[in-house]
């Protein structure tokens, strides 16, 4: 049997499992539906545009879209505009390629009543304007879903708007500064050529005036941020780097005007533009790499179901989560996420609590057990009684705590900032001193002024301003090559100073899903039939068996099987020919009258054919490859490594022993994890927390550095500062090594620029600096800093 591509999502499957539709092949009904819909709508050019990209097959269960029309929802997310229009910001899920953006926009534009639909490909956020008299929001959402994507609203908060505005402002200022200084360069070439070969004063004045024209917007428009910074600095009684930039460039600017008008000496306009451009470049890089809390809470919205089904007498009603009262009976179905805490009344099934408690194995719930909001039903259909209302349930409580935790995140002052404060005041002091000494050691006023200014210009903060951003960019690039994503450049320095690593167990140290550790065979059986059976389920245990079968027998094919039924909390039952096959836990075997005797602390999966036990598999959550070596490396750096887990002590200790961690805290809740980190922080530790689940959120937000695993929950990725895209613990040690390296590079760069100043400033104070040398030295010191950073990049491959 050959493998073929699905005609919609382009994923490759065996031909036997595909849905055949004339000469088309689909992997599921969802894909088939979308394909025909697009054909009918005349949007099939989507497939030529998308090229070789693969899509995620559509999910068929969504929460009901009527909820989008409720007044409460409108109040929260929709802004009403003029002429019956309304506007909403959405995040579109499932966008893989530019063609997806195209398809969504086209499909929305085709709907009457949609006035504007614009999707940002970079961050998947969409802005939608529609006419409320013609169209309901629910129909728009349904349209997006029907073509295989999903959309959820987010609050386009003030914070985000402000952040975007700031980024744009810096773009504009940077563009003007770059334009001015680049044009200044070719005029400066003429100036220097004239300086050596001689030119008339008339030409010189013309060149000076041209430079004057260019320097003015550079100083007063692009440089405005420095004036602002210097002003706020002074108000707080601090001499900042901005102050030095402002005094140096403003003095040089007016001095140059004086030179131009009275036609004597050399003008410094080029230095003015250069200083502003270089220092602004440093600030610009910083603004671009800054992370905003706003984006984080947007994604959280998706985790909170907005409505639940409650049983009202005999009828089932859907109500908004905030309308649920304590004591109401709530129905939860397979695949749904619980929004309210409660106690099971009837029904049974297993729940995935891994994102709240860290326990990887599914938890079986029956009458009397407690349901925690935020957990997902794997195969359970049950009724439960609400014990708390929405605001007091675990999940929404967690959101509030998260907001607090993000506010309390510690800030460690950067080395460069601290240094530049001393540096700036020293230079200003020296410059003023130089001026007075020259003035009273009889010299003319403008000679003294020029020497004083040359001290400030030669102490040019360019190299100092560039030292940190250039080094961090090298660090970011090194990380990116190893699939380590530093989300905020400033955090590299904090990471390098870390003294304690706190690791979550499930999903961080371990693989986060059960894998077969031991298999016993009792009788011969056809493995391809077993593969077909477990393949039909998405249960973590089934996935573990599939993985094991495919690993031990790579050439295995899926066998023919009919009538597979998934029995909640039991397992799978199917039929091959006339023979009954069953795979599941001891309960299923007991139901079928098969005796099982093995006792184990691990999860067990039994497989029986025709009422006879054939095989037993033991499954366990195993540590990741190289976990032991990676933790050893961290310890060799002298770091304290701690493991925190919500799981029970036995399995925590087993993993800790396997990977060599001595300090283990088991059975900790999300809040306790965060408290642990806050305590360690108070004791003077700089804490790095690595985790992946919702239960690590508070701790991630609270730690100096939060590290998320690439396949962890979206919200954990949002909250964290560093993402390890390949989930490997080796990357964790590499991230630390890169941070250390980058930090030492920052120190080297700062050292270079300080040594440079120590040589040139005395020369300037003695009056030996002519404009040519000033300009050369400025470029040269910046080049040294950039060159040193590049050297590090080549050396650390």
């Amino acid at each position, binding site marked *: 049997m050959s493998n073929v591509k699905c005609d919609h999502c382009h994923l490759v499957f065996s031909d036997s499992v595909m849905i055949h539709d004339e000469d088309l092949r689909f992997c599921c009904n969802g894909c088939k539906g979308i394909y025909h819909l697009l054909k009918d709508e005349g949007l099939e050019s989507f497939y030529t545009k998308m090229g070789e990209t693969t899509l995620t097959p559509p999910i068929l269960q969504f929460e009901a879209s009527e909820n989008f029309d409720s007044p409460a929802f409108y109040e929260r997310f929709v802004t009403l505009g003029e002429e019956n229009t309304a506007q909403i910001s959405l995040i579109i899920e499932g966008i893989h390629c530019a063609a997806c953006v195209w398809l969504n926009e086209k499909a929305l534009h085709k709907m009457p009543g949609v006035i504007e639909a614009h999707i940002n490909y*970079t961050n998947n956020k969409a802005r939608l304007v529609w006419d409320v008299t013609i169209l309901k929001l629910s129909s728009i959402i349904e349209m997006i879903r029907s073509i295989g994507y999903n959309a959820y609203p987010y609050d386009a908060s003030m914070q985000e708007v402000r952040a975007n505005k700031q980024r744009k402002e810096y773009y504009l200022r940077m563009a003007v500064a770059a334009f001015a200084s680049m*044009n200044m360069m070719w005029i400066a070439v003429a100036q220097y050529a004239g300086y050596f070969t001689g030119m008339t004063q008339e030409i010189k004045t013309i060149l000076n005036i041209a430079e004057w024209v260019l320097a003015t917007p550079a100083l007063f428009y692009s440089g405005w941020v420095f004036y602002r910074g210097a002003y706020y600095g002074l108000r707080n009684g601090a001499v900042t780097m901005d102050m030095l930039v402002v005094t140096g460039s403003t003095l040089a600017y007016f001095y140059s005007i004086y030179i131009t008008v009275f036609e004597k000496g050399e003008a410094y306009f080029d230095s003015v533009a250069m200083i502003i451009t270089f220092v602004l470049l440093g600030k610009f890089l910083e603004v671009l790499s800054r992370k905003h809390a706003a984006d984080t809470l947007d994604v959280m919205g998706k985790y909170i179901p907005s409505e639940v089904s409650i049983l009202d007498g005999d009828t089932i009603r859907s109500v908004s989560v905030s309308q649920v009262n304590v004591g109401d009976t709530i129905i939860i179905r397979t695949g749904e996420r619980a929004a309210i805490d409660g106690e099971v009344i009837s029904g049974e099934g297993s729940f995935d609590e891994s994102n709240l408690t860290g326990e990887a194995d599914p938890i079986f719930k029956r009458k009397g057990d407690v349901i925690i909001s935020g957990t997902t039903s794997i195969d359970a259909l049950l009724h439960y009684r609400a014990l708390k209302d929405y605001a007091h349930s675990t999940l929404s409580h967690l959101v509030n705590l998260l907001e607090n935790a993000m506010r309390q995140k510690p800030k460690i002052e950067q080395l460069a900032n601290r240094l530049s404060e001393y540096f700036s005041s020293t230079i200003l002091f020296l410059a003023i001193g130089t001026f007075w000494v020259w003035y009273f050691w009889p010299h003319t006023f403008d000679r003294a002024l020029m020497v004083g200014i040359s001290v400030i210009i030669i102490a040019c903060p360019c190299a100092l301003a560039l030292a940190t951003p250039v080094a961090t960019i090298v660090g970011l690039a090194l990380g990116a090559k190893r699939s380590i994503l530093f989300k905020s450049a400033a955090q590299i320095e904090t990471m390098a100073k870390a003294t304690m690593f706190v690791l979550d167990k499930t999903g961080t140290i371990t693989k986060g899903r059960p894998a077969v550790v031991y298999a016993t065979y009792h009788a011969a059986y056809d493995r391809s039939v077993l593969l077909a059976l477990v393949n039909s389920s998405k249960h973590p245990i089934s996935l573990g068996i599939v993985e094991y079968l495919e690993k031990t027998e790579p050439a295995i094919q899926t066998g023919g099987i009919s009538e597979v039924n998934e029995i909640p909390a039991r397992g799978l039952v199917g039929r091959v020919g006339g023979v009954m096959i069953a795979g599941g836990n001891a309960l299923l075997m007991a139901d079928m009258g098969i005796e099982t005797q093995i006792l184990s602390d691990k999860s067990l999966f039994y497989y029986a054919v025709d009422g006879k036990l054939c095989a037993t598999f033991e499954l366990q959550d195993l540590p990741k490859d190289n976990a032991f070596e990676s933790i050893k490396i961290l310890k060799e750096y002298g770091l304290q490594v701690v493991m925190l887990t919500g799981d029970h002590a036995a399995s925590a200790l087993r993993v800790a022993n396997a990977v060599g961690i001595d300090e283990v805290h088991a059975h900790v809740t999300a809040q306790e994890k965060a408290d642990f980190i806050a305590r360690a922080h108070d004791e003077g530790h700089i804490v790095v927390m690595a985790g992946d689940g919702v239960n690590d959120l508070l701790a991630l937000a609270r730690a100096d550095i939060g590290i998320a695993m690439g396949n962890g929950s979206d919200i954990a990725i949002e909250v964290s500062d560093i993402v390890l895209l390949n989930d490997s613990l080796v990357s964790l040690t590499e991230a630390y090594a890169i941070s250390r390296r980058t930090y030492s590079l920052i120190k080297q760069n700062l050292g270079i620029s300080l040594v440079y100043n120590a040589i040139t400033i005395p020369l300037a104070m003695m009056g030996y600096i002519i404009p040519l040398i000033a300009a050369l030295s400025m470029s040269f010191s910046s080049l040294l800093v950039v060159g040193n950073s590049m050297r590090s990049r080549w050396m650390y491959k």
Partner: protein
Amino acid sequence: MDSWVVAMMLGASLFLGGIALIAFLWGIKTGQFDDAKRMMNQVQFDDEKELNDASDQQKKREALKKKEYRPE
């Protein structure tokens, strides 16, 4: 060479450069560079259909303003 030639050439080139700068600033301000990923793929979505679509949207907007807009 008379110095006014230098002055004129400098003036002309700075003027032209200035126009380009203003055009660039306009582009940033109106958000044309906001979506870097989309910008790089824009060539794929630049045929007749897109122009028609854009004009349809424009018509919808105008119709809404005039309050004459009725869905079919």
